[in-house]
């Protein structure tokens, strides 16, 4: 079945949107240029018109040209399904003919945007080892059933063109049950995501900025009204305002991660989510380089974790820092069952943590105290108030508390070929699991003082789809570092 297929005509619209999106600034600046330039001077009397006319004419021409390009693109794009490869021919003037062998394909991702859902279509993205979308293949709009079928054939190592073999049950028999996120879980995840912090920061800045954007009389009138209200009304208003901001965060999270489902098909993990844009990401377990369970500041009191994976290859998404959200929210006691079911090789049951040496925390406390105390005592020499001293003292106290917390929580353990690290990173509590064979290098970093104290930093990198993910595990003792080095050395004996 090596017939040439065309994409669904909807692809034209998608191409069109993409061109518009890529050249929006050019179009806008062109429109502004035409609007501000007096064309009438150049034209005979009969053709004179208002600038609005010329701008709309310009936009019309742009739309027609772009529409024509999209039509040509759609017309010229053909794909063929071979038993062991997908062939895509495209290009308006220069023809690109690309054959992607199944054995080189890392994953096939089926995404459905809202337009796709109307016509029961899907976007099939084919990822190879490269991180360039132009190198990988993308079929913008094909029949949803065909996309699923291709993916099924690919996942199960069957010939791609053998569509009759496709049976209705989409799952293999021995697959364990899917994990579906309940709506409550997603709401909880959305309400405690890191973005809430950003939104709250905006919430605090916004009122002060309003005065410069609102017309003066409206601002003054509302200010007067606010000042007249009682404290109870104020409290209610502020609460409502904050709830509204949090709701924005929750709703955007729900739109992106709604109906979150995690499933395993053969050697692939399949992550599905999205309300408006339905995304389905396929990840071969061998591509997973490291797993991180992360607890941000909001989730710490509840002991909730989000699970992220670093993986090799695939398109780089700057927003996600090259990581994939594997599961939005896990309670602490669910982490072990989660790993057991989905990534049994990383199981961390009964893995005793070894704490870091306390001496480095004392050293850091002394260093911090000196940094604070020396300038402040010089300052106090000229100007001293009891509340200033109190502030400094409480600052030191809080810092000491932070160090103690870090000491309690930080630790590492190794079992077999897996390294488990627990640490604080940017106010988040992290638990990282990484296999020895995925660590590209091991760094030991020390300063002269650290050498005296016999402590050092550990740093290593794993591959991902961009410049690699670097992990820092700081302030461990030299003997622990030596143990870890020995563990790292073993690799070659038991690959």
């Amino acid at each position, binding site marked *: 079945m090596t017939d040439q297929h065309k994409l669904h005509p909807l692809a034209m619209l998608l191409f069109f949107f993409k061109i518009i999106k890529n050249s929006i600034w050019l179009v806008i600046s062109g429109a502004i240029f035409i609007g501000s330039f007096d064309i009438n001077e150049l034209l005979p009397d009969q053709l004179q018109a208002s600038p609005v006319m010329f701008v709309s004419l310009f936009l019309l021409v742009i739309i027609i040209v772009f529409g024509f390009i999209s039509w040509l693109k759609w017309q010229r794009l053909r794909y063929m399904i071979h038993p062991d490869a997908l062939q895509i021919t495209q290009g308006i003037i220069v023809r690109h003919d690309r054959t992607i062998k199944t054995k080189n394909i890392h994953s096939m991702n089926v995404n459905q945007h809202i337009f796709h859902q109307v016509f029961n279509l899907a976007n099939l993205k084919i990822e190879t080892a490269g991180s360039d979308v132009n190198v990988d293949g993308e079929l913008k709009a094909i029949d949803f059933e065909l996309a699923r079928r291709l993916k099924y054939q690919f996942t199960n190592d069957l010939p791609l063109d053998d569509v009759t073999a496709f049976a209705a049950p989409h799952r293999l028999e021995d697959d364990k049950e899917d994990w579906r996120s309940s709506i409550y879980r997603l709401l909880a995840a959305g309400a405690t995501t890191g973005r809430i912090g950003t939104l709250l920061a905006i919430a605090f800045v916004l009122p002060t900025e309003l005065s410069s954007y609102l017309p003066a009389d409206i601002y003054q009138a509302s200010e007067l009204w606010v000042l007249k209200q009682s404290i109870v009304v104020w409290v209610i208003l502020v609460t409502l305002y904050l709830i509204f901001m949090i709701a924005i965060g929750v709703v955007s999270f729900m739109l992106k991660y709604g109906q979150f489902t995690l499933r395993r098909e053969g050697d692939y993990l399949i992550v599905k989510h999205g309300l408006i844009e339905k995304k389905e990401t396929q990840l071969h377990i061998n591509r997973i380089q490291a797993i991180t369970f992360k607890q941000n500041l909001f989730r710490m009191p509840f002991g909730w974790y989000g699970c992220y994976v670093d993986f090799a290859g695939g398109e780089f998404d700057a927003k996600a820092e090259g990581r994939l959200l594997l599961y939005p929210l896990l309670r602490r006691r669910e982490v072990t069952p989660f790993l057991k079911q989905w990534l049994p090789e990383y199981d961390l049951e009964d893995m005793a943590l070894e704490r870091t040496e306390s001496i480095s925390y004392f050293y850091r406390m002394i260093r911090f105290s000196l940094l604070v105390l020396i300038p402040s005592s010089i300052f106090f020499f000229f100007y001293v108030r009891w509340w200033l001293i109190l502030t400094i003292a409480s600052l030191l106290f809080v810092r000491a508390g932070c160090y103690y917390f870090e000491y309690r929580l930080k630790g590492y353990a190794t079992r077999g070929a897996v390294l488990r690290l627990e640490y604080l990173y940017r106010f988040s509590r992290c638990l990282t699991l990484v296999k020895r064979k995925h660590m590209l290098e091991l760094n030991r970093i020390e300063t002269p003082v650290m050498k005296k104290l016999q402590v050092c930093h550990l740093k290593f990198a794993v591959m991902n789809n961009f410049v690699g993910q670097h992990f820092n595990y700081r302030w461990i003792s030299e003997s622990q570092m030596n143990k870890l080095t020995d563990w790292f050395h073993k*690799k*070659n004996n038991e690959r």
Partner: protein
Amino acid sequence: MRQPPKHQLAKAAITVWRLSGIITFIILMVMAGALTYIAYRFEWPWFIGTIAISLTLLEAMLHILIIPTIRYKRFRYEILDEEIYIQRGLLIVTRTLVPMTRIQHVDTKQGPILKKYNLMTVTISTAATTHEIPALPSEVADQLRNDIAVRARVIDDD
């Protein structure tokens, strides 16, 4: 990583770094001189020229006199059976262990100054990081590059 790596770079590395320090110094000095002249010509405050020249002198002192020796002392490398072991740094010393199996490619390169002293730089790249062994004698560098390439392949082949 209990002991530092065994081998040091070629002694001429210090001279090479000093030479490149001197070249940078000359370029910076010309720029600082031009700035001082402009400041004088347009009657800008006198401290602009002073700061520019003293910063250049300070930089020269660091890069010509102090840093090359420390860098030479600190930098060490060793090719183990299955790993490459590098130590580098000035105040903050980093020791790196790169397994042969993770190495993607090895490059050697040579600029004009290095060429004059018959030295080469070896660059070792993994999927996410690159490491440099600067200023090795050409023969050693070539040998090392081939050595690493062969070992990396042998281990990979199994």
